[in-house]
């Protein structure tokens, strides 16, 4: 019964792929279409992930696919004035902001901007027309469509998304903010695709926000590939704050060259169903790869973070720290894997996952795995699932704090270890106060929508308050 949903969905997608081929191919380069065709065959052969797969054991897609989704293979939103419906409310956050509405690039400015320092920011669809060589050189290189079925699906249908190229030695001083908005009357199935390239010695900070403005059912399968060339620095912040009826699968592929530095933060504040897949190939010596995550989930939300860190070359350093607080019937999965290959001597890799369960109905599954083939390494991993430390609680109570306040303080302290890693001060402050409010249970719907709510026209939100 359940498997039929996935089969039907797969068949629908196969059919759409052939029917809409012209629209999907668009102005993509021949190279992109070759990659697309290859990924399509993978999807045709393997289909959707199933719970029989190790990495999807606790995360079942089938119930989510039982919806008549609407697909959109051409850009309907190019001329929309997004500012009317959405404004980022992180005060003092000075960014170069890009908006994607329902997976399509919104032409707020030009589709593709070339800054004075040579940085190119804009729509991927446009970049394929204007800079085909640059796109061809990178696109799909780090994406393992064999291993990741959702990545194969995204690649088969890749059309538009964000494109950034930072030339050699350029430091993009303003963070680039990508806002992914889902706002549709009908249940939509979206597959945005982003390509980020930081050339030698370049520096880039990317803030990536996922929002839904309606409580309609939606399914997003997004893929981002990031290439950090020699000595490049990339900071990536992902803030997920989606409606309860939305399903979000994010595939992030990072490819690091010699001496590059990467920091990735994934903060999941809300979302009905969230699966984050992070795959990092450390393909150079002396790299640094830091991965932080925080998930605060309640009701029947489900969040699954899957991290694969592949140390392919020697002398690199990687660190994972994922923390979560689970309330009500929420479930969380963490599956981290560090692979140290034969040649990656003198690797230092650490991995940590801590969970706090607030109720008996919440569930945490954690699998911190190490696979090591080199001997001169320092690797450690740890995982804990538990409650707040009773001794710390006693200490605070003995100082005259009531239990409620003490609990909140401890939870905030627990979460802030991750929040502190955010290097953009304005964003850090904002996230910190969001987390605080979230943990106090004070978030109203407007505030829950994280970064907007400068109260433009509330009617456009179309939110059913009774559901909250």
């Amino acid at each position: 019964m359940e498997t039929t949903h996935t089969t039907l969905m797969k068949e629908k997608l196969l059919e759409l792929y052939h029917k809409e081929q012209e629209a999907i191919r668009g102005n993509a380069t021949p190279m992109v279409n070759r990659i697309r065709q290859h990924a399509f065959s993978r999807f045709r052969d393997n289909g959707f992930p199933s719970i029989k797969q190790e990495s999807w054991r606790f995360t079942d897609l089938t119930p989510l696919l039982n919806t008549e989704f609407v697909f959109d293979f051409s850009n309907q939103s190019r001329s929309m004035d997004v500012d009317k419906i959405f404004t980022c409310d992180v005060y003092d956050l000075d960014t170069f902001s890009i908006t994607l509405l329902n997976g399509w690039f919104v032409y707020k400015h030009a589709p593709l901007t070339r800054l004075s320092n040579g940085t190119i920011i804009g729509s991927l669809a446009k970049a394929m027309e204007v800079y085909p060589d640059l796109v061809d050189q990178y696109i799909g290189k780090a994406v393992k469509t064999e291993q990741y079925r959702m990545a194969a699906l995204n690649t088969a249908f890749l059309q538009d998304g964000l494109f950034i190229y930072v030339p050699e030695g350029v430091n993009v001083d303003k963070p680039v903010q990508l806002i992914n908005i889902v706002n549709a009357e009908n249940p939509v199935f979206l597959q945005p695709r982003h390509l980020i390239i930081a050339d030698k010695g370049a520096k880039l900070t990317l803030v990536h926000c996922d929002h839904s403005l309606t409580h309609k059912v939606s399914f997003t399968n997004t893929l981002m590939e990031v290439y950090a060339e020699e000595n490049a620095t990339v900071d990536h912040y992902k803030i997920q704050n989606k409606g309860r009826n939305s399903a979000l699968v994010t595939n992030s592929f990072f490819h690091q060259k010699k001496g590059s530095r990467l920091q990735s933060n994934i903060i999941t504040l809300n979302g009905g169903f969230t699966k984050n897949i992070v795959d990092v190939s450390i393909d150079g010596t002396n790299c640094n790869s830091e991965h932080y995550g925080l998930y605060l989930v309640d009701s029947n939300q489900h969040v699954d973070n899957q991290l694969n860190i592949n140390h392919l070359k020697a002398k690199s350093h990687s660190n994972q720290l994922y923390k979560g607080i689970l309330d009500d019937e929420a479930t969380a999965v963490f599956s981290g894997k560090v692979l140290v290959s034969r040649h990656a001597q003198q690797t230092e890799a650490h991995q940590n996952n801590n969970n706090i369960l607030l109720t008996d109905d919440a569930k945490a599954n954690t699998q911190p795995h190490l696979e090591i083939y080199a001997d001169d390494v320092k690797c450690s991993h740890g995982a804990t699932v538990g409650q707040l430390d009773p001794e710390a609680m006693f200490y605070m109570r003995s100082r005259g704090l009531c239990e409620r306040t003490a609990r909140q303080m401890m939870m905030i302290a627990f979460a802030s270890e991750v929040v502190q890693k955010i290097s953009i001060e304005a964003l850090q402050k904002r996230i910190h106060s969001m987390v605080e409010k979230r943990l106090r249970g004070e978030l109203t719907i407007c505030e829950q929508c994280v970064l907007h709510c400068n109260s433009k026209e509330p009617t456009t939100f179309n939110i059913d308050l009774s559901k909250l």
Partner: protein
Amino acid sequence: MSDKNNQILEEIGGSDYKYGFYTDIEMDQAPPGLTEDTVRFISAKKNEPDFMLAFRLRAFRHWKTLKEPDWAHVEYPPINYQDLIYYSAPRKRPKYDSLDEVDPELLETFEKLGIPLDEQKMLAGVAVDAVMDSVSVGSTFKKTLAEHGIIFCSFSEALQKHPGLIKKHMGTVVPYTDNYFAALNSAVFSDGSFAYIPKGVKCPLELSTYFRINAAKTGQFERTLIVAEEGSYVSYMEGCTAPIRDENQLHAAIVEIIAHKDAEVKYSTVQNWWPGDKEGKGGVYNFVTKRGICEGDNAKISWTQVETGSAITWKYPSLILKGNNSTGEFYSVAVTNNRQQADTGTKMIHLGKNTKSTIISKGISGGRSNNSYRGLVKTGRKAENARNFSQCDSLLLGDQCGAHTFPYIDVGNRSSIVEHEATTSKISEDQLFYCLQRGIDMEGAIGLIVNGYAKEVLSKLPMEFAVEAQKLLSVNLEGSVG
């Protein structure tokens, strides 16, 4: 220094298997192949009650519907199950009044292994139920045990004498539907051991069984069942050595332990099957299902294992902590060398309130071997205040080997605390340096450090076993110095 290191590691890899010899005894074998007829043949040969045959056939039919699992981190050529011999028993089945009547060759085998069958060794206080190619040939200390009402005999004997007990308990912890190899074992198991400790009895002896694979091309499928009634205590030891054979031998055993209220079972094992030669040729495939259940409140089961042999080890001694306040422990040292592969660990399933479990696993890999820890800690919705602590360390002794850790933690209530920590590293240069500057040579230093590293687990073994275990570590790691 690394040159010296390599040289030593090579020497260690070169150390020969000291327990490799082969005894020529006439065998009574089932023809190769696996059909319902084979299952019936085994059952008939052993003159089993009807329920046993029915159980075997159910298991066999289920096995046919299964596919061999491939998720473990091991590689081996496909096994042709039709090519194996599923039953082999020494042809002479004498009833011994004294040791003089025992086949002298067999006695010699035991002597080489140091099994204490004779008078002098009886003083060591060990009752031995030796299984040689599936059928029990000798038992001692029966009298002392009988005085306490303890049953300790071969599985076949138990089937004849205590069919009720077997029928009641067999397959309750590891059902034949559990996994591929459990189904296979349930269908064709040849013999094994059965221990029953009545209510309130503290077993005065360490129960010990030595297993030994002997004839070529014989799969050994033992089945062990230990039942500890309310308030009883038993310490059970199992040890294995195997002779050098070129062909891979399949070993798919089942061990079931049932501990009732306030009972305690301590299960220790030293496994040293033939690991194959330096190129990974030959060696035993050790695919074992071991599981215990703390059925009643305050029950306790502990597994201690030293795994040094086998070409492939695939085993997860598990515990179901069903009774409230029950305790589970798992201590393991797994050593792999040359081309050995080990995928081992444990499962702790917490169901009762205030249940506690401890996991200490030490992996040591050298040569071109792969050593994985794979473990599950699961606490159910009702397992209030469940507590687990896991520590899995890996030590790498060369740049061609692999050490992997695959823990799974599933927590289903808010009052449980589950902690897991693991480290992977090579032998500390500082420790080596310290030993060297005290005048200990490199080889001695490595042996010393490795033994110290494993000590936490070795100290959990019963005295008699601890000595053997240390020797085995020496054989495996210290090479010629041994």
